[in-house]
């Protein structure tokens, strides 16, 4: 069901719109429309299934421009809806697409348009900056939509009402979003639908789609493809004239087999492979009719088996009988093993439409690669009852059902078989011709002329019965009705018109008839038996298997080729001499060498909360690569105060493995390694006090040993870290009167030099400007794994912030090195405050800056707490106020 026509009507012809995708889910319809280089999604709303243009109203238009983004949710399971999130400016639209090729097509087209926008067209736009997509052509739709608007009076301005849409969606309204895309070849004016379809088919997204659909078992596409390929290669594995089926039908008029059936059953030169022998009126007794029990069954079966071709041995496969209608299936012994799934059924069409005096029996079986069904029927009698006979045929076809081994599958009907042989006394007569004329034509052997009066031929010509069946040319005289025991036409009172009651028809491919004849020699009945030798092309299982495997292999290959794949410029990255707060980056280039566009993402490893260690980032960490396209990913290493402590102490290394996952494809591992140069930044005060040498001069392993508490110099630690002293001393000597000290930011390059200086040696003075040194000091305090006032004292400090002596008491309880640092820093700051006139600092500024570094909470801080930390710190910077407080 196609609703696209309705939407087409709302679009202007000159836009050269092409419907690329069209989806129906709860009446959400998506469609791609192309127009020049500009790309948009049209969102339509409709009241009901869209039939005419009046049924839809334009709800919104989202341009696919630079601030547009689309993300596809993870497919929960094969067959589930696809969640798609589109964002445009500040708006987000979430919707679900039904699982299937239409949705795939839509998304791949959307992605193409989107990625095309961001990767290719940007260049074009950049060349002439004045040309920015203006989407002028959309204006007319906005006007048009007014007149079309059913649910909405005024079209929404571009880009604004997306949130509104989501609301309405919840209330169960329907939309038809529509999308335009930039496909250049479409812009020459395509008018007819056929042209469009052709373009759609030939457009480059098809292979991706094919691959995805191939992989979905519920579409059965794979099996259809295989079947299709098998058909194409049929001649490669089919032998013609390989299997001969002898079909015989005989209405025996309740007689017993008084003479040999050999003239009928052994009339072929070579022994046939399969015998299907059918009888009608085997027993006309009431017992047979009511109790379906007759001694004639074994009698005739014996007669048949004695009359089979003497040059071969046959196995009885199956016998089925309904009152007088009996069918026996024999197969040459050597073929027996290829017969399987044998089932027999019967359908009565006699009195009340059920009784077994008329009707059919059938045997179905699987032979090599074919499903074969043999039907023996005895249809309604009397010359005028041809319509009743047609009806019987239809009833038999409808009611004959074979159970399958697998009960969950629907039963097999006659017509579903590859080959159907239909034999029996079909009872169609010769009508509209006098007995005299009939007999004259027979005596002239003009069977062709006579055949024109045959009811069966006429009914078949009218397609009233046996549709799809074939009957061979009749070159024998009618088989009914003779005086029993003779070849004389019926001489009874009724003086029946001769008729070809007994017939053999077939349905199926690769079947040829070798003979079709009656057997006048048999005189037991008022009918003559009829036989036909049909030869079926059988499937050579060896070549069939080969062909099948070849096809499957090719399809597997196609499928494997369609697995997304990329090549990576490098899979191992080494970052040399990683330093604290020094950004390093390397480029990883992904090239899509697969046959389909692909979506990549760095995925989390188990037991890890992020896709990589926190000192590493990949930018972008996910994205889309068109077929043949490439993407550069920056792998960035940056060690900050969060990650430095463990790297300094050697607990962690610069080592990580990233897992790059392609959607529906493989995973790549990318190893990142590096050597980290430990720094005083991010090292604890305690450790720094224990280190008399610069941190880089420490023999490997020392830091780790010291961290674990096994320190040899423990008895003689430094009072404060020498690095801290160097910075403070530098500032004391050079920057005490520096204007805006601690307020003016330093230089990045200066910081790198200062850090290296502190980590490698002890020069007399530090490099860089005063502001840079001041900032380096602040960064040092910020990077401490445990602040100057350790976390465990934080709460205590807050509690006593209103009482100066209590504050001092808390500080006196700090570990020695922390206490020293605290006192040292506050003394320095007080010194700074003596020069307020020059450096323009005041106690508020300094307590704000330093409190946040020295008195840090382990978790987040609210504003009230922040005030308290400043209050606490205030006492130490302003001894006057502190004494004033204590004196009160």
């Amino acid at each position, binding site marked *: 069901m196609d609703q696209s026509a309705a939407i087409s009507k709302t679009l202007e012809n000159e836009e050269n719109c092409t419907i690329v995708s069209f989806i129906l889910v709860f009446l959400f319809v998506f469609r791609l429309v192309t127009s020049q280089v500009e790309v948009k999604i049209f969102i339509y709303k409709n009241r*009901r299934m869209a039939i005419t243009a009046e049924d839809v109203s334009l709800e919104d238009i989202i341009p696919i421009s630079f601030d547009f983004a689309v993300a596809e949710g993870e497919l929960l399971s094969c067959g589930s809806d696809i969640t798609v999130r589109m964002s445009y400016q500040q708006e987000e639209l979430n919707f679900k697409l039904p699982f299937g090729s239409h949705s795939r097509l839509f998304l791949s087209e959307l992605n193409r348009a989107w990625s095309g926008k961001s990767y290719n067209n940007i260049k074009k736009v950049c060349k002439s900056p004045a040309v920015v997509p203006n989407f002028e052509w959309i204006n007319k739709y906005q006007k048009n939509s007014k007149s079309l608007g059913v649910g909405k009076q005024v079209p929404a301005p571009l880009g604004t009402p997306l949130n509104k849409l989501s609301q309405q969606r919840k209330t169960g309204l329907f939309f038809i979003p529509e999308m335009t895309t930039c496909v250049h070849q479409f812009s020459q004016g395509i008018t007819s639908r056929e042209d469009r379809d052709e373009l759609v088919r030939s457009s480059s997204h098809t292979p991706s789609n094919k691959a995805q659909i191939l992989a979905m078992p519920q579409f059965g596409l794979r099996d259809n493809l295989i079947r299709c390929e098998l058909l194409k290669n049929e001649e490669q594995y089919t032998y013609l004239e390989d299997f001969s089926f002898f079909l015989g039908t005989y209405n025996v008029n309740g007689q017993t087999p008084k003479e040999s059936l050999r003239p009928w059953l052994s009339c072929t030169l070579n022994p046939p492979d399969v015998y299907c022998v059918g009888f009608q009126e085997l027993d006309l007794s009431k017992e047979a009719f009511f109790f379906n029990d007759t001694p004639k069954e074994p009698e005739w079966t014996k007669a048949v088996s004695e009359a089979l071709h003497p040059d071969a041995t046959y196995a009885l496969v199956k016998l089925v009988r309904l009152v007088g209608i009996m069918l026996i299936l024999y197969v040459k012994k050597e073929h027996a093993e290829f017969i399987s799934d044998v089932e027999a059924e019967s359908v009565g069409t006699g009195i009340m439409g059920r009784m077994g005096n008329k009707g059919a029996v059938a045997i179905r079986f699987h032979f090599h690669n074919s499903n074969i069904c043999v039907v023996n029927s005895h249809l309604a009698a009397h010359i005028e009852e041809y319509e009743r006979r047609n009806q019987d045929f239809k009833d038999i076809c409808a009611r004959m059902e074979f159970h399958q081994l697998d009960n*969950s599958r629907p039963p097999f009907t006659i017509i579903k078989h590859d080959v159907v042989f239909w034999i029996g006394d079909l009872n169609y007569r010769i009508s509209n011709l006098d007995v005299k004329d009939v007999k004259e034509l027979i005596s002239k052997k003009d069977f062709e002329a006579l055949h024109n009066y045959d009811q069966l031929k006429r009914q078949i010509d009218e397609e009233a019965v046996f549709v799809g069946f074939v009957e061979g040319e009749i070159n024998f005289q009618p088989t009914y009705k003779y005086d029993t025991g003779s070849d004389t036409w019926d001489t009874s009172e009724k003086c029946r018109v001769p008729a070809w009651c007994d017939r053999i028809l077939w349905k199926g491919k690769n079947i040829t008839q070798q003979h079709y004849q009656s057997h006048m020699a048999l005189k037991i009945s008022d009918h003559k038996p009829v036989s036909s030798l049909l030869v079926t092309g059988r499937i050579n299982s060896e070549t069939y298997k080969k062909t099948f495997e070849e096809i499957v292999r090719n399809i*597997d290959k196609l499928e494997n080729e369609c697995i997304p794949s990329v090549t990576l410029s490098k899979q191992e990255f080494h970052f040399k001499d990683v330093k604290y707060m020094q950004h390093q980056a390397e480029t990883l280039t992904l090239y899509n060498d697969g046959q389909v566009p692909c979506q990549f993402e760095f995925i989390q490893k188990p037991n890890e909360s992020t896709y990589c260690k926190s000192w590493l980032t990949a930018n972008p960490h996910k994205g889309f690569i068109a077929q043949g396209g490439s993407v550069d990913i920056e792998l960035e290493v940056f060690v900050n105060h969060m990650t430095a402590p463990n790297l300094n102490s050697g607990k962690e290394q610069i080592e990580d493995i990233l897992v790059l996952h392609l959607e529906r494809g493989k*995973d790549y591992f990318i190893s990142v390694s590096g050597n980290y140069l430990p720094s005083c930044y991010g090292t604890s005060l305690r450790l720094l006090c224990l280190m008399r040498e610069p941190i880089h001069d420490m023999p490997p392993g020392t830091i780790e040993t010291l961290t674990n508490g096994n320190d040899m110099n423990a008895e003689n630690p430094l009072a404060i870290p020498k690095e801290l002293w160097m910075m403070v001393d530098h500032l004391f000597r050079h920057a005490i009167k520096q204007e805006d000290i601690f307020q003016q930011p330093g230089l990045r390059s200066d910081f790198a030099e200062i850090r290296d200086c502190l980590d490698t040696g002890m020069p007399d003075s530090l490099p860089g400007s005063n502001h840079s040194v001041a900032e380096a000091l602040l960064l040092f305090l910020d990077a401490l794994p445990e602040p100057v006032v350790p976390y465990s004292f934080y709460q205590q400090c807050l509690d006593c912030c209103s009482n100066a002596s209590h504050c001092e008491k808390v500080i006196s309880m700090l570990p020695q090195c922390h206490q020293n640092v605290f006192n040292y820093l506050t003394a320095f700051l007080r010194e700074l405050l003596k020069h307020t006139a020059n450096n323009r600092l005041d106690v508020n500024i300094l307590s704000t800056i330093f409190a946040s570094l020295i008195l840090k909470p382990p978790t987040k801080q609210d504003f009230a707490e922040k005030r308290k930390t400043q209050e606490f710190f205030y006492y130490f910077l302003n001894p006057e106020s502190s004494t004033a407080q204590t004196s009160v």
Partner: protein
Amino acid sequence: MAKQYDVLFRLLLLGDSGVGKTCLLCRFTDNEFHPSHISTIGVDFKMKTLLIDGIKVRIQIWDTAGQERYQTITKQYYRRAQGIFLVYDITSERSFQHIMKWASDVDEYAPEKVQKILVGNKSDEVEKRQVATAQGIKLATAYGMDFFETSAFTNHNITETFTRLAEQVLAANKRDLDLLRISINDEINLAALEEEEGLRECAGGDQDKSCWC
């Protein structure tokens, strides 16, 4: 009757780096052999369709990085597998000894029902052989696994090995198989039915008789 069932299994190739896991896979799926060794750094997979007992079995074969440093990551793929190839190189005693480690990792990380098979690859390199066939058989017997010596180079025992494991997985999952089966015909009939119903509903609710059908 041609059965229209589809069953999908995941099989995983495990073993030391360089034993020939990727080559086994390429030989099996594409019938190709590339003599140069390029380490798989990641997890790759290919599809293959097999006909087993008239059941169309589609197998997804995962080829994993053998290098030790990736093992913490590759272990996470074990739990999705129904069958595992433990592959060693008959010219490398070391790779054979490591089978024990691989097997214990499988016990730890793979599902309980997982089927395993031991594969000694590079059987064509007779002169460099370090692991006797008997050793392989002995180890396989101890683990209760089937054992094959294969050569991706000469295409020896490749199809046999993959088919065998697929058969084992099929047998082990026989009970659940019916649930995994998808009858395409039924699927189509169902879809047609739903469509019809949908139309009927629409026709009922809509006055436009000409409709869209």
